[in-house]
């Protein structure tokens, strides 16, 4: 699957395109398929997202999983500070990244 991601322009937070809107959670990310580039162009103009780009990902029971470790770290947070991630209470979250 193809996921559209970037950083929120004003806050810098990692965001994922859900098909209609931007979410902080990769679980909400939609497969943008062939339409990805067009959505990216349109969204750049709205000034909500900064430097958006399209990545590969796979469908899993836990939701979309970015193909590259860098984007999984973006999705969750720094592996060395679980308390600062989106899932501070989940001891398995780090494994999902690696």
């Amino acid at each position: 699957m193809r996921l559209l991601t970037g950083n929120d322009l004003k806050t810098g937070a990692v965001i994922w395109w859900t098909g209609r809107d931007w979410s902080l959670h990769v679980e909400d990310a939609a497969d943008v398929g062939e339409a990805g580039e067009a959505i990216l162009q349109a969204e750049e103009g709205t000034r909500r997202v900064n430097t958006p780009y399209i990545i590969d990902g796979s469908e899993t029971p836990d939701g979309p999983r970015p193909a590259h470790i860098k984007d999984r770290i973006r999705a969750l947070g720094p592996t060395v500070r679980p308390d600062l991630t989106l899932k501070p209470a989940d001891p398995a979250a780090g494994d999902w990244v690696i």
Partner: protein
Amino acid sequence: MYQYDRYDQAMVDARVEDFRDQTRRRIAGELTEDQFKPLRLKNGLYLQLHAYMLRVAIPYGTFNSRQMRKLADIARKYDRGYGHFTTRQNIQYNWIKLEEAPDLLAELATVEMHAIQTSGESIRNISADQYAGAAADEICDPRPWAELLRQATTFHPEFSYLPRKFKIAVISSKEDRAALRWHDCALRIVRNEAGEEGFEVYAGGGMGRTPFIAYQIRDFLPSGQIFSYLQAILRVWNMHARRDNIHKQRMKILVHDLGEEEFRRQVEEQFAHFLTLGTDFPQAEYDRIAAYFAPPPFESGLSDDIDLSDPDFALWVDRQVIAHKTPGYAIANISLKPVGGIPGDISAEQMDLVADLAERYSFDEIRATHAQNLVLPHVRKADLYTVWQALDAAGLADANLDLVTDIIACPGLDYCSLANARSIPIAQKIAERFADATRQRDIGELKIKISGCINACGHHHAGQIGILGVDRKGTENYQLLLGGSGAEDTSQAKITGPGFDEEGIVDAVERTIERYRELRTDGERFLDTYRRVGMDPFKEAIYG
């Protein structure tokens, strides 16, 4: 330390409003990201993996308790309760919002701080010896020159859109505690036979993708001419560097392409021209600045004895405390490398504690080091025990200065959008493997430096043991390098062979260290043994 006058304050205040307007224009869509990026970088604001990251300048690594408390406040108010001290004596915050950055900079300006030129293709923070003004071996305090040059290079109209970044270091001792020859330009204050003060000038060093060690291009430059000389260097580079390939635009590339002789010739030609302009800063300005760096009111008649009956305190003194030039005083190093912790990170609460200790016990002065640690430069020996107890309670009293667990590591893939691999977990695993204090002291001086990508912010080229994280077919992989040095015996580390995974690199480091222990002769550090026996015995141990 230096204090702003109304002119300095006006400069940082104007800069805040400048950036506030640029941010407004970006958010309103009047500036594209392509246009805004160089502008925000000139204010130290990166877009990193998780958020914007702000790099705040700590000029030549010197700051005071008021500033440290403000840094703590900022960590709490604008970030997530902590900061990170960098390999260039600055501090970074990882969770900044663009829309709040102008207010953050405005708050910094109230305590004479800023983020000017800490990133981008600018003249960056000028680094200096972290023991300046306290060390017994310096000719004079190098920081007045660092401050003078800071001002001279701030908002320089000709040199604000350079081919790449430009890093300067200034020291005044034979021992090099600032890694001079890894800088684009470095100065060592010396005296000639007539007793006049001047600089040895080095140029063309740098790490990154293609590391180079600087040449010495001048034995003696009269110190009053330094601004002319520096502009000459910058103009030669600004005019002639390549602009087509970002990886070939650092001055070290031009210096290497031209060769030492030709580069020196061109610089001297420009220098002769700049001298005719008569725009050097006068002695009166140097004297004005130097007055701020006069020694604090040290007491006399203090005892040089330290009660070492507490064994943990004794270990800390042995490792962390350095001789001060004034009797009765000492330099106290604060470790930001607790075993298992994140190298260089410090919580807001710890910042407040260090501020209190500095104010009460160190003439209100703190230093940041390029090894990502801190220093209290002027502590009475009689106060060391109290200071240590407070540091110990706050987790800041590891006695590991320059030992195997005093690792320099960049933020790596956990934080940085440029990274290929995580560096912090490697630092943690190595530190945990060698946590035993007796084992650490037995190994002795061993400077490990870890970078998460070839940009080398972890300075792995200068590591006695260097580790470089790479991306190998989508997985993190780590190369091992040996024999680098950032001291006056500057050398570049060499790769050992094929890389390792996350577990493998720790084992490889351990095998390297064990081989060193087998081969060392009396008093040899790891680096000495490596230089004596070469790479082969280590390769055998590592790869079998």
